[in-house]
């Protein structure tokens, strides 16, 4: 008798569990779509404020270069940019307004989303520049200019110039207009970051013609097959930079 009731009890338990699964299933399916069937519960849906300009996959507007590409840039770098806009170190009204209310956690999640996007790179137009200018650009990017304490770009941004995880962005695949305007904005103090702000120092050591030369040579480069940022620790930066913590080994 006891054994029978135990069996019955067991059968009821098993049946009950299955019933439970059956009952819960539709709710589970609903929960995935929550809180509204037409509104997907995805980060992509949540960040419409970002993707409206930068593209659903962070592709930016390569034709005009006006809205920069975010896809594939290292997450630490992207998080830092949001924080710099929030703190007013980088100055661009619409971005400062948009980043204003974000928490560090949400900024990081958004940065991870764009960092993980793999979108093909496209080429953008170059201004007509002399071979001598391009040669000067190549010299600065690959060797720097020790007479003016300008390190090579590749010393931090990686031998392939595709950036280094997690904080250093790539330089190849960017439009001429974007690179030259960023270097310019360090000089006009509309772009800054935590001290010591290495790029501020470097941009101010470059002459205006150097900025054109560097931007043009970088924008003219054939793209390496692997555009991903190199692994963390693959460079030893020659400067102490606030954005890199204490990873530099001296100025």
């Amino acid at each position, binding site marked *: 008798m006891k054994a029978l009731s135990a069996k019955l009890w067991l059968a009821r338990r098993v049946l009950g569990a299955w019933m439970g699964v059956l009952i819960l299933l539709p709710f589970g399916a609903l929960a995935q779509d929550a809180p509204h069937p037409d*509104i997907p519960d995805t*980060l992509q849906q*949540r960040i*419409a*404020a970002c*993707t409206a300009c930068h593209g659903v996959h962070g592709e930016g507007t390569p034709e005009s270069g006006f809205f920069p590409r975010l896809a594939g840039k290292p997450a630490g770098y992207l998080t830092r940019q949001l924080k710099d806009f929030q703190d007013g170190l980088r100055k661009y009204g619409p971005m400062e307004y948009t980043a*204003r209310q*974000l928490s560090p956690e949400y900024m990081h999640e958004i940065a991870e989303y764009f960092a993980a996007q793999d979108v093909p790179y496209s080429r953008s137009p170059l201004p007509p520049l002399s071979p001598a200018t391009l040669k000067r650009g190549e010299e600065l990017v690959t060797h720097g200019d020790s007479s003016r304490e300008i390190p090579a770009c590749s010393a931090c941004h990686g031998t392939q110039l595709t950036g280094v995880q997690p904080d250093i962005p790539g330089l190849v695949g960017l439009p001429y207009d974007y690179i030259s305007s960023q270097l310019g904005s360090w000089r006009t103090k509309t772009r800054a970051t935590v001290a010591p702000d290495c790029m501020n120092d470097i941009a101010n050591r470059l002459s205006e013609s150097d900025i054109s030369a560097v931007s043009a040579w970088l924008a003219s480069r054939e793209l390496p097959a692997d555009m991903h940022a190199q692994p963390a620790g693959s460079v030893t930066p020659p400067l102490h930079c606030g954005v890199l913590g204490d990873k530099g080994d001296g100025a």
Partner: protein
Amino acid sequence: MKRVIAIVILALLALSGWWLFRTQARQPVSPSASEVTEVTLKDPALIAKGEYLATVGDCASCHTERGGVRYAGGRVLPTPFGNIPAPNITPDRDTGLGGWSFEDFWQALHSGMGRHGELLYPVFSYTSFTKVTRDDALAIFAYLQSLPATKQAAKPLGLGFPYSVRNSLKAWRALYFQEGEYQPDTSKSDEWNRGAYLVQGLGHCNECHAPRDSLGGSQSKPSLAGGQIPSQNWYAPDLSTQANGGLQGWSKQDIIDLLKTGQSARGTAFGPMAEVVQQSTQHMRDEDLRAMATYLQSLPPRVAVAEQKSPLDTRPILAQGAKVYMERCADCHGKDGNGVAGVYPPLNGNSSVNEPSGINAIRVVLLGGFPPVTKGNPRPYSMPPFAQQLSDSDVAAVVTYIRQSWSNHASLVMERDVVKNRHTPID
């Protein structure tokens, strides 16, 4: 010309103010006048209470520069009279409140007077803070004195003549400032009184949610009736939940939800209110939020504003607006304008859509953005900015459509209203 008139008026008012106040002139308080000892100020329970109250008062919001050290000052507050930087209120001896006694602090908070008897500019909302009790002020002072001292000198005042003359404030105070702690209304519940105390005092809600006149004075009657925030150009809506009120139909829970999470079934906080929610109200205790909601629900009904009939034929504007709405807005806010519960706010019956100026709806369409990120809503859904995508004409049309559809009957907005608000407010 306007400035000359202002100078003459202020000179006359200053004279009369001096006459009114001549018997009340105060001497600077000497340190020995303070009865509060060092030991009192070090009491951890008092400091904890003060931290909470400083959060309720949102002191850090003005007294912290973007990206700066909390409470070390430096944020520049724009006013129609010029820019006024908020001072450092950390206990640094040279640049902050290091040398201050509690009596000095009380005189500033309660009477709007600096340590040396100088009159303070009312951008520091002592018109509200005067209602704070002495006990609460002591707790806030103890908390501020417990902060790490940060050396950061005040930025120079950006005020031109005649506003740079502090004594002109005597006249201003005679007109707009009534000194005195909050007096409980014994005919009301304790909860109502707590709410009134928080809303009128530390919360200083009326500093934004009331119209200001040309001298920058806040009209206190009726209180919390809504107004345009000078220089920031956002409209802080009327807070009455009763007939014709800006929050007509809001339940107690709707108010609590908005203050605690940044969004409610009726609307979402944005612009300056997003900052208030993020920095202040989301951290408030449930019973205090409930008390504020109870008080706000007791605000009286408002006088109905007669619907203005436009002399223009609005049909083409509404047709243009409807087209833009269906293409750009309806996917999230719904064809019925009712939004998606917990995700996208309703536009139908939304106080910020229907506020008299139309500024809020114009700016939200242009700027988009995120609601405040709070513990209750850590990953909010955002809205795309349409500044780059829509012309002034399309923005005016879609905002007019939204303001005149479903149950909404607000005035139309013009292209020139859009042009005026195309710049992005940052501070």
